[in-house]
C-alpha cells in the first residue's frame, strides 16, 4: 500500500511537471479558435499615427474563414464607400467615385494598405501559425496583468513567412493573444503588435485594441480598435464576390 501511494504521488508530480510545459501547438490552436470564428462581422476604428499627422478611419468588415474578407470604409466622408475584398490571394479594391473594381497587381502587394503600417501582403499572406512554424515555449511572463506563455516560432523551410523569428505572448488562463514580436533576417526586431483592452465583443471576450509599431520608422504607429463584433453569423461565399462589391453599403 505504501508503495502504491509513492507511485501515485510520483505519477502526480510527473504529470504536473508535464502540465507546466504544455504543447505550444495546442496553446496556439486554442488562441486561434478564440479569436477567429467560422465567420465574423466587425466594426472597427483604425488610427494611423504619423510624425506630423494622425488619420482616423471607421470601417466595417466581414470575414469567412481565412480565405475571404471584405472591408467597407465608412469614415472619413471623402473615402466613404470604398471597399477592399480579399479572395484567397487576391485583393480587389472598389472606389465609388470612379465606380471601378481594380485588382491589386503583385507589384503593389508590398505597399501600405490605406496608408497604414499594414501592407497589402499582411492581409493576404496565408501562413498558418500552426503548420508553418516550429514552436518552443521560452518562458512565462506577465502582460496586461495576465500570466502568459512566451512562445518562439521559427518558420519552416519553404513557408511563405517573411520573418526569421516570431515571438508570441498568449495568456495561460484564457488564451488571449496579447503580443507579437516579428524579427528580420539579421535577428533585429522589425515590428511589435500589442493587444489590450480585453472586453466583450458579441458573444466572445477578446482584446479589443491592437497597436502595430514598425521599428524602423520613427513616430509611425497603427492602432486598430474593435468597437463591435459578431461571430459565427453565417455569410454565404457569394457575399465575397467581385460582383457584390458595388452593392455593399
Amino acid at each position, binding site marked *: 500500500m505504501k508503495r502504491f501511494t509513492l507511485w501515485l504521488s510520483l505519477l502526480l508530480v510527473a504529470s504536473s511537471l508535464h502540465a507546466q510545459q504544455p504543447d505550444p501547438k495546442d496553446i496556439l490552436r486554442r488562441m486561434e479558435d478564440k479569436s477567429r470564428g467560422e465567420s465574423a462581422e466587425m466594426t472597427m476604428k483604425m488610427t*494611423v499615427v*504619423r*510624425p*506630423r*499627422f494622425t*488619420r482616423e478611419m471607421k470601417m466595417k468588415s466581414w470575414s469567412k474563414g481565412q480565405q475571404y474578407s471584405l472591408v467597407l470604409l465608412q469614415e*472619413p466622408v*471623402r*473615402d466613404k464607400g*470604398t471597399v477592399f475584398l480579399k479572395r484567397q490571394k487576391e485583393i480587389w*479594391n472598389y*472606389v465609388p*467615385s*470612379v465606380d*471601378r473594381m*481594380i*485588382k*491589386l*497587381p503583385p*507589384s*503593389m502587394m508590398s505597399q*501600405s494598405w*490605406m*496608408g*497604414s503600417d499594414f501592407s497589402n501582403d499582411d492581409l493576404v499572406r496565408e501562413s498558418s501559425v500552426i503548420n508553418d512554424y516550429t514552436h518552443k515555449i521560452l518562458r512565462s511572463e506577465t502582460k496586461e496583468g495576465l500570466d502568459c506563455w512566451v512562445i518562439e516560432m521559427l518558420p519552416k523551410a519553404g513557408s511563405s513567412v517573411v520573418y526569421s523569428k516570431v515571438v508570441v505572448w498568449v495568456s495561460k488562463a484564457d488564451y488571449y493573444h496579447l503580443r507579437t514580436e516579428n524579427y528580420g533576417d539579421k535577428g533585429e526586431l522589425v515590428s511589435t503588435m500589442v493587444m489590450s483592452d480585453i472586453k466583450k465583443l458579441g458573444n466572445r471576450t477578446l482584446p479589443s485594441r491592437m497597436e502595430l509599431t514598425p521599428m524602423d520608422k520613427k513616430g509611425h504607429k497603427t492602432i486598430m480598435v474593435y468597437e463591435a463584433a459578431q461571430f459565427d453569423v453565417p455569410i454565404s461565399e457569394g457575399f465575397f464576390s467581385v460582383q457584390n462589391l458595388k452593392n455593399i453599403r
Partner: protein
Amino acid sequence: MLLFKLAWRNLWRSRKRSLITMSSVFFAVLLAVFAESVNRGSHEGMIRNSVSYFTGYLQLQDSAYMDEPSLDYCFAWDEQQEAAFAAVPGVKSLVPRVQGFVLAASNSKTRGAMVLGIDPAREEALNGLQSQLIAGNFESGGIVLADRLAERLGLALGDTVVLLGQGYQSQQAAGAYPVTGLVKPKLPELRKQSAYLLLSDAQTLFAAEGMVSSVLVMPHENASISQMQAKMQSLLSADGYVMVRNWEELLPELLAAIEFDNASNRIVLVILYIVIGFGIFGTVLTMTLERRKEFGVLVSVGMRRGRLALMTLYETLLLGGMGVIAGLLGSMPIVAWFYDHPVPLSAELGEMSENFGVDPFIYFSADPSIFLSQAGIVMGMCALVALYPVLYVKKLNVLQASRA
C-alpha cells in the same frame, strides 16, 4: 636668342623630320582631348537629364521628402511665395510639381504609375517635354501618358484611365481621366511609368489643394548656385519644414557613380598617356641619333655642350608647342561638332544603355578646361622627352661621333 634662332632654323632645315614629331604630338593632343571630352560629356549628359527631369539645379522640398518621397510631405505654395522666390537673382524659372505613385488601370490591365502634376509651359523650358509629345497635347485637361505605359495598359488617345492610390496624408486618391496625349520622355525609366496631369488636377486627385511636392529651380547660365541657395534658404521661415537642396544633395547616387567612373577612366587615361609619351619619345630618339655626327662636329668646332644641349631643348619644346597648338586647333572644331551632334548608339547598344537608365547617345563635353588640361599634360610629356637629347649631348663622345 641666337640659340633660339638656330633651333628654329634647324627645325625647318629638315621639314619632314619636324613634321613627323609634330604630328605625333598633334595626334596625342587630339586623342587625349577626345577621350576626356567623351568621359566628361557622358557625365554631363547624365547630370543634365537627371537635373532637368527629376531634380532641377536647386529644389524646394520638405526636409523629410528626400528620405521618404511621400505625398505626406507636400507643402503649401502660393503666388506670393512664387513671386518672392522668382525675384531671387539668378533664377530663370521655378517649376512646381506635385507627384505621387498610383495604380493606373485600363479596363483590362493595371500598372504602377508615377503621376506628375505639372505646369506644361514651365516644364517645356526645363526639359522640352512639349516637344517630346507624340500625340495630343498637355492643355486639354486630361492625362498625358508616357508611350510605354500607355502600351502596357493597352490605351490610346481618347480612352479612359483610372488612377487609384493615396494622396496627401493617406487620403484616398481616385480619379478617371481621358487620355489626351502621349509623350516620349528621353529617359527610359520615365517612358515606362510616368503620367502627366495639370498641376491643379493632380492637386485635386491627391487631396492636396494648393500644395506641391517640390519646386524645381532653374538658374540663369553662370549664376552662382550656392549664392542662390543661401538667398532662398533665407526666404524660408526657419521653423518650417521646407528647405532648399542643390542637385548634388539630390543626386548622391549619380555623383557616386560618376566618381567611380572617373576613377576607372583615369586608369585608361594614364595608359593612353604612356602610349602617347612613348610615341613622342620614339620620334625624338631616332631624330637625336640621326644627328649624332652633326652634334659631334659642332662640339669639335668649338660649340659648348651646354649651349648645344640648350638648343636641342628649344627644338623639342618648339616642336611640342607647335604640335600642341595644332592639336588644339584641330580638336576644337571636331569636339564642337560632336558637342552639337551627339552620336546616337546603334539599336542593341542603345537598348543596353536604356536598361541602365541612360539615354542612348554618346555626348561630348566642350568644357574649355578639357583643352587646357590635356594640352598641359601633353606639353609636360614633351618637356620630359626633351631631356633625352640634352642628356645625349652632355655624354656625347666627340671623337667617335664626328667620325661616324
